């Protein structure tokens, strides 16, 4: 029983991390209709940014998250204005190609700049934990979970209640109507992409603290984020949390009861099921 409680706790905490990773991807996909295949590579860049801030400037990875997010926001804004705006209304295939190319370029630039050595962000409290009964909760994962909830709810409130958030949603729903109301789509798209990357940057900082960083972590993170975004749905940031938690718990239980090699089978199996049964995601609007 204790083992089951521990496994569920592991799954929930893992799910929180998954949710932050997928949040940026879901936002960009939902608003810009760009499936950003370079999303994982931006998480990787965020992780390296956090690592450098921690290693050379001694900035705590959690306190450094806003800084990392800001750096990636700037990068995202520039990339969208300079590069991705060229394909924003092009067929899906073109955006896939360009973001895939971006992924390859970023990965190899990262190897050139940072080498293939493994890095870990290892603050003194990285291995600490708190215990509830017999269940051990790693402190860093707990904090990452907290950050995930804050970011998701924050994103939700931002989209619902701020002028900019409403403009973003309006543009996603009906570009023509939004323009008639004075929304400047180019700026708005760049802000959205910047926000997506800022979230990826934050996720990277958290990821480097619980796992390890090398230039090649991106591709598998993109795949995972993609699955979570589909499972949760793109309409609502809360869907991403639900998708992340769901996936985290399912993977943990699969590892316990069936075997670790089946964790991926389970998560991508669920992805297929969701696509068949609820194509707009668990929390998505039904058509």
């Amino acid at each position, binding site marked *: 029983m*204790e*083992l089951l409680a*521990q*496994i569920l706790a*592991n799954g929930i*905490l*893992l799910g929180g991390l998954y949710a932050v990773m997928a949040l940026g991807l879901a936002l960009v996909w939902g608003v810009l209709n760009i499936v950003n295949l370079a999303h994982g590579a931006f998480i990787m860049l965020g992780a390296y940014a956090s690592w450098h801030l921690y290693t050379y400037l001694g900035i705590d990875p959690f306190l450094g998250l806003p800084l990392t997010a800001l750096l990636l926001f700037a990068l995202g804004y520039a990339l969208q204005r300079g590069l991705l705006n060229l394909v924003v209304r092009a067929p899906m295939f073109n955006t896939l190609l360009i973001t895939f190319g971006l992924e390859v370029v970023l990965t*190899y630039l990262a*190897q050139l700049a940072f080498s*293939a*050595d*493994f*890095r*870990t962000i*290892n603050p003194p409290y*990285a*291995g*600490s*934990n708190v*215990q509830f009964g017999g269940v*051990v909760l*790693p*402190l*860093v*994962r707990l904090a990452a979970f907290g950050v995930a909830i804050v970011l998701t709810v924050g994103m939700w409130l931002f989209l619902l209640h701020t002028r900019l958030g409403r403009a973003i949603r309006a543009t996603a729903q009906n570009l023509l109507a939004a323009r008639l109301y004075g929304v400047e789509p180019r700026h708005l798209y760049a802000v959205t992409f910047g926000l997506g990357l800022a979230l990826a940057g934050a996720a990277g900082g958290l990821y480097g603290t*619980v*796992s*390890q960083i*090398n230039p*090649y972590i991106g591709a*598998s993170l993109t795949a995972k984020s993609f699955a979570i975004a589909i499972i949760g749905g793109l309409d609502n940031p809360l869907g991403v949390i639900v998708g992340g938690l769901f996936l985290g718990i399912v*993977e*943990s239980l699969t*590892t*316990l009861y069936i*075997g*670790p*090699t089946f*964790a*991926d089978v389970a998560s991508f199996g669920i992805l297929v099921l969701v696509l068949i049964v609820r194509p707009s995601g668990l929390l998505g609007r039904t058509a």
Partner: protein
Amino acid sequence: MLPRLFFRFPSVILPCLLAALSLPAAAQEITLGASVQLTGPVANTGRYYRDAYQIAVEKINAAGGVKIGAQQYKLALKLYDNQSDVNLSVRQYTQLVSQDKVQLLLGPFASNFALADSAVSEKYKVPMVQGGGASDQIFSRKFKYIFGTLAPASNYFGSTIDMLKALKPAPKSVALLYADDAFDVSVAEGTRPKLKQAGLPIALDERYSTNATDFNSLLSQIKSKNIEAVLVAGHETEILNFVRQAKSLAVAPKMYSFTVGVPSEDFRHALGADADYAFGMTAWLPSAAQKDRWFGDAAQFASEYKQKYGYDPDYHAASGVADVEALVQAMETAGSMEPQKVRDALAKLKFDSLYGPVAFGANGQIDLPQVVIQVQGDGLAEIYGANGFVKQPKYPMPAWNAR
């Protein structure tokens, strides 16, 4: 037509002339070809092979090169980056043999690569000496042109299990975790009967996906079943995650041992103080007792290597150097660089090197004992070898909050 040919005359004749001029020089050179992982997820270990091949070739050339009959030949190296992609590496080996016409082949890193690439050497009947693939699968196909200088995967945990029996108190239960690739599956298949023979019950036996990042469920099971010894066959990234997550979940078995990572400086650096107490194994340590024709001995090699590349060599690097040396020794004994003759000489080869005594079994694989090593404080300690304990292990491992 004719004027045009005249017009092209210089561009046609010049390369021919140049080729004719450089022909005698080219004949003085023997090219060894290899495809290694310089980029991609395993570039981190792949670089050992590039660096080892280069330093060996330079050193051998500086000493005069290869002597075949009365003539001295220089060695040259043709390296491709396979981007950690098995399919690309097979294509590159095919290109090395069929288009670049290299004389002999050196290997890639990792068993799954060597497993696929050895099919190329076999098909073209060009011997490949590889120091990057240890899986028994590579050598169980009755191939004639593949030789390996890594000790068999099935025996990686052999010395560790001998040590476990000798520990007081010996661990009561063992977990065996392994990744789903050629090398790690071979390790697990070899380890299971050895544990059984030693009377150590396997309480958890799980295969996980290569590149898995989440070990929380496995670690929770280790804790809940009170497993005392954990043997993991995997890749460095997985093992880094395993150790970090063990700490964060406060899982501290009496000992854990890993097939890779522990001997490598980069790995210990990434984990910092958390690397302490981890066991591993190596078939090679830079000892001055291991004499070498070109480098003097293993200790001199290690310092020369470190000076040149800025990081310590581990057994991968030593194994890579042994591969180059084996090819050179074989060419010299065969008195030829013809693939067939070199192959026959390799099969009978016996020489001492910085890597240890090199001789290949009937299946083409070397047999070297694995020494158990442990991270103790900042350094690596040699713990258990063929003659029992060399140094006392730090055992049992203390709880994480008691360090």
